[in-house]
């Protein structure tokens, strides 16, 4: 009992020494705190929180990203196809022509390896054949069924036509036509604003312009024809088939009013024949 009383008195005297208004001075125990690494742990915690805050802000901003170069073209090309379904008439029933295996074999024989392709057959003569821009090493090819039926094209001729489109896609002729309009969109971010749908519409209008109206220039067509010439000359049979294909197309655009537009999109089969024939070469 006496012990408890002494302990009580002692503790009272200790408390009595500190006045309630007096500020506690921690400087004397600063070193102790430092040794406890409390400052360090506080700093690590603050850094972690800051990192999390930045990450969250970045993720939140990234939600407003507009697709970059690799995804932009695929999205725009497919959006254009969806919006032009009525003009192109691609949603229709057709037999399996075995185009996938035929074109795959053709590419492998030409040494064009690891190339993924998607062919969309359309039931319209509005577009005869075209390569739309898409992701790298992928090709999105439109091919008109009425066109190949009118010309009675073989699988080899179709493959050559599609290869020509692939060469155009590799040369980025289509992309270079649209890029000035699309550059304000590709890979940008619109956080704090709204997506400018007018800009998207302008890009799609450029698609219309290129695919349905203006097409390629003479000099672009010359370069493509010369590239095909150089590539196919190693195989005379293949070169001959390509030449005869252009003869067929030339005859078609001259005789069939339905395909008059073709010579405007790909100018022109007649000149292509001149460029392909060495004796009548007509270099630009």
């Amino acid at each position, binding site marked *: 009992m006496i012990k408890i009383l002494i302990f009580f008195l002692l503790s009272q005297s200790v408390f009595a020494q500190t006045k309630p208004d007096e500020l506690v001075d921690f400087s004397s125990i600063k070193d102790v705190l430092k040794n406890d690494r409390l400052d360090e742990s506080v700093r690590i915690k603050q850094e972690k929180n800051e990192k999390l805050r930045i990450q969250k802000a970045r993720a939140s901003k990234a*939600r*407003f*990203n*507009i*697709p970059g170069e690799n*995804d932009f073209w*695929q*999205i725009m090309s*497919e*959006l254009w*196809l*969806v*919006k032009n*379904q009525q003009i192109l008439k*691609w*949603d229709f*029933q057709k037999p399996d*022509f075995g*185009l*996938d*295996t035929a*074109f*795959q074999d053709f*590419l*492998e024989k030409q040494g*064009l*390896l*690891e*190339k*993924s*392709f*998607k*062919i*969309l*057959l359309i039931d319209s003569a509005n577009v005869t054949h075209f390569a739309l821009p898409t992701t790298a090493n992928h090709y999105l090819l439109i091919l008109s069924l009425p066109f190949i039926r009118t010309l009675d094209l073989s699988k080899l001729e179709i493959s050559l036509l599609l290869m020509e489109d692939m060469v155009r896609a590799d040369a980025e002729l289509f992309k270079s036509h649209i890029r000035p309009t699309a550059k304000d969109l590709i890979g940008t971010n*619109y956080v704090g604003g*709204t*997506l400018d*749908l007018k800009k*998207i519409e302008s890009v799609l209008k450029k698609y219309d312009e290129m695919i349905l109206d203006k097409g390629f220039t003479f000099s672009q067509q010359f370069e493509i024809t010369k590239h095909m010439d150089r590539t196919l000359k190693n195989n005379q049979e293949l070169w001959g088939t390509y030449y005869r294909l252009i003869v067929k197309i030339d005859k078609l655009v001259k005789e069939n009013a339905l395909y008059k537009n073709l010579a405007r999109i790909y100018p022109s089969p007649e000149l292509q024949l001149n460029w392909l024939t060495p004796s009548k070469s007509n270099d630009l």
Partner: protein
Amino acid sequence: MEGLLIKFLLLFLIPVVSFADAKVIMVKYMNTPWGHVHQNSSRYSASLTTVSCGHPLKVLELNNKGWTKVIAGPYTGFVQENNLVSKKPECLQDKYPRFFDDLKLEITQMYYWGKLYDQYVEGKSRLK
């Protein structure tokens, strides 16, 4: 009265039994921006529903001539095998969520976007 009770019980039991028969093998995910679950294993067969990329589908039968039998919500139908993947894919809609929202695509446009992947003739040249 007893007969009526049996019929009533059968009415409840038959769907349960048929559902139990449909054994789910695994879950696969749609790997195209939009895709269709078809009534039959043909790209031209009627579309039961349109699902977006990353949508989980319960697989009932694996790759039968390029088609996989799946359950999508209340529908049981067929999806082209090459439009499915086993792991949740990185979808364009997830990469650019606000962009796709703000494009304000109509339901018919999503339907046709799915149809595109039914119509594509796809291939890849390979090293031999």
